[in-house]
Structures are given as C-alpha cells and as structure tokens.
C-alpha cells in the first residue's frame, strides 16, 4: 500500500500558509482573547507564563528518556514499567495531565510498536512533552494506521517484512510510550549516557535508538 504516498499531492501542511498580515491578525486575535479572559477573572497573566514555562523547560522527552534508560539498566524496574506504567513512571517523578493512565509497549527483534491519535492529538505529555506538528497533522494521523510501513519508511525507518508492526491508536485516555530496543554496543554505558541516546521519535515509535 506504500505506493499511495507517491501518488499523493505535495504535503500542504509544510508550506507556509499564512501571510504576514494573516499572522498578525492571528496574534491580535489571541491577544484580545487573553486580555478579555484576564479582565474577566478567568485566567491571570502570571499563571499563563507559568504554564507555558513548564512545557518549555520541565516537561519534555528528556523525561521519557530517563524512563527508558532506567528500564534498560534495571530489570525489576522494567518489569514494573510493563505491568503498571503509570506507577513506575511516577517513581521517577513524572505524572499528570495527559499521562494519567500510561501503558508502555516494548519493541523487540520481532515486534515494532508505533503510536498515533487518529481522532485528535492525544500524546503522553508528562514523558514526551507537547507533540511535534507532524504528529498532530492529517498526513500522519490518517495514514499511519493504514500504511504504517510506508509512513515509517518516509521518516527514515525501513522495517523488514518479518517484523510485526503494532499500531496503537490513542482513542481513550490511555497514553502510550514505546520502549525502544537498547542499541548494540552500549553494554558499558551508564544510565545517564543511555538516556542521552533516547529520542522522542524512538519513544513514539517512528525511529530506533542509535548508539
């Protein structure tokens, strides 16, 4: 089914779709909304900055990378992670909005997992932060369920035919994190060194971890 992709038109979601005037109009619309909500006492300006800073500085894929590195180096932790991911992730201090009900799915020599939300943009915020644009856009959401191998190949991951691909569509409040395979040649690496290798894309399931 991969040849669908080659017949499709160019991806409109990558082209600049706003003129400068349109962007200014958007900025003005947001500024008015924000000011009106502040004056009405629905939100306050200092809390808005506080919320944004949390997602800029404290919550991101470095959290998930620590979870993965711990699982690679501590078999008992890995077992807890696969049995009750929410609790095991909370052991490392990560919890909250869009991660209330976590499930970790493990890649192996025979199985490759990849995560999507076809209906909106569900994503495990506490461990991966806010999702990248491609994850939320129609090309990925529409096609990774019908042609996962073609989508993964476009993103640079060619999977052999004898591997089972498992696609996880996040249709409820369960949030999925992929536990990638530990790369060969990292036997002597420390947990911190391993965490530095783990990428966001590997934890969504659109890449492997490279040593």
């Amino acid at each position, binding site marked *: 089914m991969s040849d669908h992709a080659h017949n499709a038109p160019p991806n409109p979601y990558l082209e600049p779709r706003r003129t400068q005037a349109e962007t200014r109009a*958007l900025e003005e619309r*947001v500024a008015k*909304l924000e000011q009106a909500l502040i004056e009405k006492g629905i939100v306050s300006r200092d809390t808005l900055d506080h919320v944004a800073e949390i997602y800029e500085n404290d*919550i991101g894929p470095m959290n998930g990378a620590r979870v993965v590195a711990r699982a690679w180096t501590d078999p008992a932790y890995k077992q807890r992670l696969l049995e009750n991911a929410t609790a095991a992730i909370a052991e490392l201090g990560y919890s909250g909005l869009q991660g209330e009900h976590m499930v970790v799915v493990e890649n192996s020599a025979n199985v490759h997992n990849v995560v999507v939300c076809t209906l909106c943009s569900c994503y495990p915020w506490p461990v991966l932060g806010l999702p990248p644009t491609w994850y939320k856009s129609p090309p990925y959401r529409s096609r990774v369920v019908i042609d996962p191998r073609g989508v993964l190949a*476009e993103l640079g991951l060619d999977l052999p035919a004898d591997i089972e691909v498992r696609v996880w*569509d996040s249709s409820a409040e*369960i949030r999925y994190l992929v536990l990638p395979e530990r790369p060969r040649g990292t036997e002597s690496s420390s947990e911190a060194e391993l965490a530095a290798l783990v990428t966001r894309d590997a934890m969504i399931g659109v890449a492997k971890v490279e040593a």
Partner: protein
Amino acid sequence: MNGVHDLGGMTCFGPVVAEENEPVFHGDWERRVLAITVAASGALGPLDYRRHGIERIAPAQYLRSSYYENWLARIEILGLETGLITEQELSSGHAERQTDTHPPTIEELDAVIMGGRRADRDAGRLEPRFAVGQRVRARNLNPAGHTRLPRYVRGRLGMIHAIHGTHVFPDTNAHGNGENPQPLYSVRFSATELWGPAAASRDHLFIDLWEDYLEPLGETADE
C-alpha cells in the same frame, strides 16, 4: 459525528515530513494558546465536551488550520457557547463584566498539571462483559454527536487484548448526559481485517474501545 477529524485510513494528505529541530512553540501566540487552553480548561467544561468543540470546526477550516489555530477556535466556540465570553469581548479584547469566580492560582494549576484528571471511576459498570482473548465486533454506530469510535473500525472483527478498568464514556459525557462509566478495552484488529488483503498479514492495530462500542461474536465466526 462522522466528521473530518476522523482521519484514520485516508491517504490523500501527502507524505509525512518532520520539521528539523522543531521548537516547542513557533511563535508567542502558540505559547499563549497552549497556556490559555490549560489554564481555562476547568472553566470550559469536561474534556469530552472540549474535544467535541474542535470537531465542530467547519471541515475546510479544520484541515486548513494548524493545531494551535484549531485550539484557538475551540476556545472561542466553547467560550461563546458556555457564556464564558461574548462576541463583543472577543472583538474588543476587554471584559464587559467580571465573573464571580477567581482565576486558578499557580498552585491550583500545578496540581492539575502534575496531578492530572483521571478518567477511570470506581462507580458505574464495574464488571466487564468481555474477557481477554474474546472475539468481538466493533458496532456500526453513527451517532450525531461526539464519539471515540472511529469509522475505520466500525463493523470490524477484533479480539479483546486487555481491560483498562471502568472509564468515563465520552459519547454521553460530551453532551451533559452523564459520565456513564463503563469498561474500557484494548481491542486488537489484524491489518488485513481493517484494510483488506493488500495489508501486511503480520501487522495489527490496537485501539481503546468502550463496552458500548462492542458486541460479542459467535464461536464460529472468523476474525
């Protein structure tokens, strides 16, 4: 609602191309929309109602807009619908009148961000009707309102992979018709069952479906 947001299985949108070194926000306005979305989420209503707000954006606009543009439109749609804000206030950027609530404090927002809002319940339908390993069919339902049953699994045969406990039912909760908590299942479908013989025979799709989306299958039916 059979809306344009239900994208699974469409192949007309072109290749997936990732932006290199993508920033968390592409501009200050995106940062502000995210912050307002989180900070005002309590005031705008239940999660399922807020999700349905995005689904009610006009189809062409939904596809043409970026994620944060759709989030912005959602705040406006739901703000007007709930009476949180007026057309006049949106166009002037100033309040006509104060609300009698106080805005959430940093401590209250930290509690939401770090504590989350669980969707499981210890009340409602607690005994699962289906067992792990049991074959089921996703029902062919086409509700006019919010649903989390995508078109691409309707009528298809799958197998119960796991039981997640009892969760709030979006189809009723989005419309003020109660949480109706009921068992939520991870259901496994083969790629060939969903997409036909051209799909890879080894591959599977897993999706979380509520009990009311599923019906049992006779012993003799084939997956």
